[in-house]
């Protein structure tokens, strides 16, 4: 609808919207996170839900203990290789539409523990991450900013057409393969459809 017409109508007290707008508005204002704190970033995540940096005003007050009732998985903390299959399995058990926020340096790329033998160098090796929050730990305001970025992403998702998200597309897969414990490392070490190692070009 024409934006000028819409603003004229709203000045007269007539409010117009689309089904897509209403659907996305309902989804963005009631994103329920999964209780998934792994390490120190979880403390900042908890602080974000408390009184000073209230996350409840965004509709995300209820952190669900069960993945079946959650929309969003905030991976807060270092993901060890022992924990990685459980993270992916929990993500697979969430119903769609689902989103992932990688909070903190450890969830993005392994962080300060990148040389650890048991540290998974970033959860985006196995899961499609929507928002990355740098920081060690990121401040609660940063988590709120990431949440608002996610809300803008949800607002811009289409309902029909080729650009529609994965949860509306019956042909797109819904599960990601769970890594198994190999002899020295996880098998496979990363999911090639989601993550490729960065290409290094060396100066001559």
């Amino acid at each position, binding site marked *: 609808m024409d934006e000028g017409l819409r603003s004229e109508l709203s000045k007269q007290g007539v409010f117009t919207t689309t089904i897509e707008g209403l659907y996305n508005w309902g989804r963005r204002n009631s994103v329920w996170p999964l209780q998934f704190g792994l390490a120190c970033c979880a403390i900042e995540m908890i602080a974000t839900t408390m009184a000073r940096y209230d996350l409840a005003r965004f509709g995300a007050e209820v952190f669900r203990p069960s993945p079946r009732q959650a929309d969003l998985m905030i991976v807060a903390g270092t993901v060890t290789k022992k924990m990685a299959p459980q993270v992916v399995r929990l993500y697979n*058990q969430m119903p769609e539409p689902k989103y992932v926020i990688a909070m903190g340096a450890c969830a993005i790329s392994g962080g300060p523990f990148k040389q650890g033998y048991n540290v998974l160098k970033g959860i985006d090796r196995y899961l499609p991450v929507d928002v990355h929050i740098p920081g060690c730990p990121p401040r609660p305001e940063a988590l709120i900013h990431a949440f608002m970025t996610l809300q803008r992403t949800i607002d811009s998702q289409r309902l029909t057409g080729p650009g529609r998200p994965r*949860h509306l597309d019956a042909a797109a897969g*819904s599960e990601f393969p769970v890594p198994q414990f190999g002899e020295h490392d996880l098998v496979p070490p990363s999911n090639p459809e989601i993550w490729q190692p960065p290409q290094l070009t060396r100066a001559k």
Partner: protein
Amino acid sequence: MNYDPYLFLVVFLGVAIAFALVPLGLARLWAIKYSPPKPGEQKQAIYECGLESKGNAAIQFKSEYYIYAIVFLIFDVETIFLLPFAVAFLNLSFGAFMAMMVFVLLLVEGLVWAWMKGVLTWK
């Protein structure tokens, strides 16, 4: 025109059934048009904090919890049935009184069992 007093109830029943069925129908229409269901083997697996679960999640009810059922019957269900008995006590016939005493006797047997088993003492 004679106003049928049950007309309101019929209308109420119809509206109540519609209130329950219309959102379900709308959800089904939405699933058909926009958001098809995407079941998956892992998506519907049993939840066990991210681990693989072995066996069925619906386990059989344990019969060792029978004493809780007996104590609940005595202290909750019998109490509810004793309330109308207490209200109508002075107007009862002897036969009704005896029927009520049989009912109380059955539940007193359960109370005596629980008492002798020692579940009513607080350690």
